[in-house]
């Protein structure tokens, strides 16, 4: 552009600005004196002629209202209404979407750091590149988390001013550390991201550790606020603060901290897996397919690694809720929210089935005809049975006539599967089956070189069978003992499964050390496997939304359970049908925005994928056995 044109443009802009300002000033002057007649003659008439009776009455009314307004004392509003959907639903949606982003930005640094560390130790640059790509998803997600955090804070102050004020007065000592940690998180995150490859690796890993520590600290503080509302502590019966530390360290604070850390990992892994799937499906070259197949595998591994211990963290959380209030515990599991756990069972069943299906498809990367694939129907049967038992309600929905025909509210046979003894057993067996799927995948194409391999494998089978026998036996015993004993049986069930998983993994690691490995053909995955990854991400997100609802909804008509009552119009507990609709809205809002994040990240990375490994030319076709790359064993 020539300098003349620039000068001309500046002059036009200047003239435009002056015209706008003068126009606004003229309007301002005019509006102040405009009469209903709006003509110059009318203005003169108003100035000269006496007011009409109507005008006089209006003026007197306005004066009276001004006087009354002056006399009115200041009153703090307890609640304000949000249009159309109401305050409760508005806060619910904003809080949930904010939480979904927050969980993602807390989770990704955790596994990115681990992957980066693996790359550092193994000197394999691909791990480093993968970790960087995971972290690159964070930058826009970080901004969205902060934006939603701001919206949530303002909406709480506007819509629930009195309660928000109370919460702020209880936790005032925690706000300054929280804000400082937010600044620290931003500093560590941007330094970690932008210094990648530009500072020493150890320094960079230190930055990653600090980012994780600070992020965890932020989550712990925020968890104190929300868990206090459900299981208040450190306050008198009237809500007066007795001890801020006790308010922080309430019954469910640490269980929620641990549960969220694990759940965030599983959820973050699933979202990163969806990103990899999105990239895989849009891949233009075999190298891209291979890279994003590997990325999807790693992300899914993280998600499943988080999913397996999650029920155990859930037990702890639930037991603390019962310890705080049996009424609340029973409202959760046997009262208003009991059917929510049937929905949860269906979601977790879908998660386990989809995750296993992805693992089974993954065996094709190494050896499509591997004999261990013969076990898949058996595993599918076990997981499906576990799913069915877990989703069986104690009391089915029946008409009075059907109830009479059944001889009671519970089905004479299926009713036995609706109690906790059966459900604890089924979830533990499902976890064991998923673990077996993972071990089978891990061993695909590997031939151990140690002399005791056969004995080792046999011992692994015995350990798994023993754990399954313990779990099933304790489940059966649970029907025959009194409540006090039965509740305690879930602990040995959980411990036997955990112990079996640890022992079998330990044996597997030492048995396969130095094993002969077949080539892993990254990219040789059917397209449907990538849609499974996306399905897993949607299901994880939906599950997060549902469980977020029950955690908060458990308070029912209380802001702070048993202490500060909710007297707003939204104090009722909505139907599960309504709740699931709100959860779906949150999920769709989140995916619309995370899709934008994926698109941005894709712009950044599409040209950075470099060829690695030798190309294994597939048949292309519909992608089921598409073009693939042969690489050395790179799976963790």
């Amino acid at each position, binding site marked *: 552009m020539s300098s003349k044109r620039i000068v001309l443009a500046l002059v036009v802009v200047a003239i435009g600005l002056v015209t706008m300002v003068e126009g606004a000033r003229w309007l301002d002057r005019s509006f102040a004196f405009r009469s209903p007649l709006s003509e110059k003659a009318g203005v003169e008439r108003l100035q000269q002629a006496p007011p009409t009776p109507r005008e006089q009455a209006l003026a007197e009314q306005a004066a009276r209202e001004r006087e009354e307004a002056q006399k009115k004392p200041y009153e703090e509003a307890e609640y304000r209404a949000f249009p159309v959907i109401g305050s409760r639903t508005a806060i619910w949606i904003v809080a949930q979407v904010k939480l979904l982003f927050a969980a993602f930005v807390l989770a990704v640094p955790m596994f990115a750091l681990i992957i980066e560390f693996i790359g550092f130790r193994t000197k394999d640059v691909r791990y480093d590149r993968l970790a960087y790509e995971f972290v690159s998803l964070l930058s826009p997600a970080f901004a969205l988390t902060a934006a939603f955090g701001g919206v949530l804070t303002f909406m709480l102050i506007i819509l629930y001013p009195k309660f928000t004020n109370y919460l702020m007065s209880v936790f005032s000592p925690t706000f300054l550390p929280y804000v400082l940690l937010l600044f620290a998180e931003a500093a560590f995150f941007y330094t970690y991201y932008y210094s990648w490859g530009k500072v020493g690796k150890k320094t960079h890993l230190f930055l990653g550790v600090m980012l994780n520590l600070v992020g965890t600290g932020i989550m712990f503080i925020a968890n104190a606020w929300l868990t206090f509302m459900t299981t208040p502590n450190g306050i008198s019966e009237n809500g007066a603060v007795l001890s801020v530390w006790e308010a922080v360290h309430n019954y469910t604070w640490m269980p929620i901290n641990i549960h969220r850390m694990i759940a965030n990992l599983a959820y973050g892994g699933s979202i990163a897996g969806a990103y990899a799937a999105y990239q895989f499906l849009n891949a233009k070259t075999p190298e891209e397919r291979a890279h994003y197949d590997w990325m999807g595998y790693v992300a899914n591994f993280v998600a499943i690694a988080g999913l397996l211990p999650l029920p155990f963290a859930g037990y702890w959380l639930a037991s603390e809720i019962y310890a705080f209030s049996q*009424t609340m515990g029973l409202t959760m599991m046997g009262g208003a929210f009991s059917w929510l756990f049937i929905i949860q069972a269906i979601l977790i069943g879908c998660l386990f089935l989809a995750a296993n299906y992805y693992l089974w498809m993954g065996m094709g990367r190494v050896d499509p005809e591997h004999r261990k694939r013969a076990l898949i129907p058996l595993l599918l049967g076990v997981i499906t049975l576990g799913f069915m038992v877990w989703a069986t309600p104690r009391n089915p929905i029946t008409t009075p006539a059907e109830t009479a025909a059944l001889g009671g509210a519970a089905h004479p046979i299926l009713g036995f599967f609706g109690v906790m003894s059966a459900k604890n057993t089924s979830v533990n067996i499902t976890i064991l089956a998923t673990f077996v799927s993972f071990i089978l995948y891990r061993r695909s194409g590997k031939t151990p070189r140690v002399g005791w391999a056969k004995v080792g494998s046999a011992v692994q089978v015995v350990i798994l069978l023993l754990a399954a026998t313990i779990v099933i036996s304790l489940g059966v015993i649970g029907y025959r003992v009194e409540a006090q004993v039965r509740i305690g049986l879930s602990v040995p069930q959980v411990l036997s499964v955990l112990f079996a998983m640890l022992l079998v993994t330990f044996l597997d690691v030492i048995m396969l050390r130095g094993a002969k490995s077949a080539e892993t053909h990254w990219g040789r995955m059917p397209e449907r496997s990538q849609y499974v990854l996306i399905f897993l991400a949607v299901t994880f997100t939906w599950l997060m939304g549902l469980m977020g609802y029950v955690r908060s909804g458990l308070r029912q008509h209380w802001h702070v359970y048993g202490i500060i009552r909710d007297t707003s119009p939204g104090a009722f507990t909505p139907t599960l049908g309504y709740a*699931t609709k709100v959860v779906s809205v949150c999920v769709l809002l989140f995916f619309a925005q995370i899709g934008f994040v994926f698109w941005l990240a894709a712009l950044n990375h599409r040209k950075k994928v470099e060829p690695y490994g030798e190309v294994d030319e597939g048949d292309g076709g519909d992608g089921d056995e598409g073009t693939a790359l042969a690489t050395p064993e790179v799976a963790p």
Partner: protein
Amino acid sequence: MRVPVIVKIAGLTLGATAFYTWVGQLVPQKEVQPPQVVQMSQDIGTDEMVRIGDEIFHGKGLCSTCHTIGQGGAALRFPDLDGVAVRAANRVPGLDQLQYFAQTLYRPNDYIVPGFNPGMPEIDKPPVGLTDDEIKAVIAFLQTQGGEATITMATTLPYSKAAGGAGPGEMTADSGGEGAAAAGGEGGDAAAAPADGSAAERADGGDDA
């Protein structure tokens, strides 16, 4: 025509979300309103109290969340209340039926039924927070489980506000009147609180209701 990947992903996301929303519509739909104080006139009869107590038991009081009536077996987490009126009369030595019921509701952790864990909340305090009159109505309903309701609105229950929060052995004329200390009223067949305070010294109260 090849469907663009982004359309397939959007379809899958919408489909999965719609499926879970649909599942949410299949389960029982119940909207739980915040409980309101049950307005009870002081001149209602025992039969009316039983009816109101039944409603509170299955609603505001949340009793039926934990307790069943007429479902025995090991699967119970809290005591089944079928025939509780008979058991209540002799459950704790020194406490008559009405005193025992009052103790189970106001001070549930003073006595735990063998084989069960503590867990019942103090029913006059949040989160349940029943009023004294509502508690009387619940007791009237419990008395009909294997017995006959005898409590009246004039009865002064131990631990209640009218009794100044005093237990069976601690009640005086000031805290509800000696004669009306426990059963009171025209229909009270339950004995008044022991004068020696023996019941008050017990630390193993009740958790039957």
